[in-house]
């Protein structure tokens, strides 16, 4: 819920900065490994955005695939959450290079 409220706050702030009356759509990037569930976020957003310029706006969620780099052999691979196991050398704990992000990318205003 607080992630949804943060998104609504960011969207409302940018709407005001741009002199917009309302927010139409908000495009967010949410990594698969971020711990944020897209369904839960979509459910919370309408309530989180009530009472500001973002009220009634559509939240468009783009899931970013997880990517990790093995610390031992340097192979790049898609980690199967929860275990980050290198498929090339079976080492654990590769460094996650994408899939952990939570960004408001852009928005449509009017």
């Amino acid at each position, binding site marked *: 819920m607080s992630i949804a409220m943060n998104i609504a706050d960011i969207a409302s702030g940018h709407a005001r900065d741009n002199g917009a009356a309302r927010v139409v759509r908000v495009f967010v990037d949410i990594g698969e490994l*971020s711990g944020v569930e897209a369904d839960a976020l979509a459910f919370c957003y309408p309530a989180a955005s009530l009472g500001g310029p973002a009220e009634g706006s559509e939240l468009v969620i783009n899931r970013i695939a997880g990517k990790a780099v093995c610390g031992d052999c340097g192979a790049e691979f898609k980690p199967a959450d929860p275990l980050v196991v290198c498929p090339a050398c079976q080492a654990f704990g590769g460094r996650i290079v994408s899939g952990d992000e939570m960004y408001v990318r852009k928005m449509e*205003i009017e």
Partner: protein
Amino acid sequence: MTQKRIVEVRQNILSENDAIAAETRAALEKDGVVSINLTSSPGSGKTTLLVKTIEELKGRAGVAVIEGDQQTDNDARKIETTGVPVVQVNTGSACHLDARMVRGGLARLERDSARILFIENVGNLVCPASYDLGETMKVVLLSVTEGEDKPLKYPKMFRVSSAMVITKTDLLPHVDFDVGRCVDYALKINPQLKVFRLSARTGDGMDGWIDHLISLNH
């Protein structure tokens, strides 16, 4: 007629939280304070461990505490009995502390002689993993009355923590918890994780934990 247009934002959803956390971290580091964000499921024994830890640190390192709970100041009152400075932060509907709440708590906390600040988070293994409070490190607790596979079920919390404390080990004879398997799961999620096993009730295993806390301060 109003025109629809696209504006680029490219803003981290937690950027405001993270900026406040960075200020808190800098302020605490300047004062030589090590801060520990304690997380776990509800009922894993965070407050009990904290009370015991404070007792054992007496005369060795000054301690202060920020207690986070959705409601009540019950935990702060338990900490108060130890005589160290404590403030309660109630998160209301939120299931976790955030950097703004901790900054507000710090402003009320008399932490002059404190060298170790404990921030007891709301019992929850999900959202607290995403929120930087400005702490030096996160420490996750897991009690032996829970499932040993919690590191696999809540991987992010174990990935972002520096240490895991397995609590209530005095109950091991009465439960099916497999400590070895739990540690194995946790280290597969985070090979750098430091692991402690202890019982705050009997004091067994407390020494290693206390020594670790002291070493962080040097």
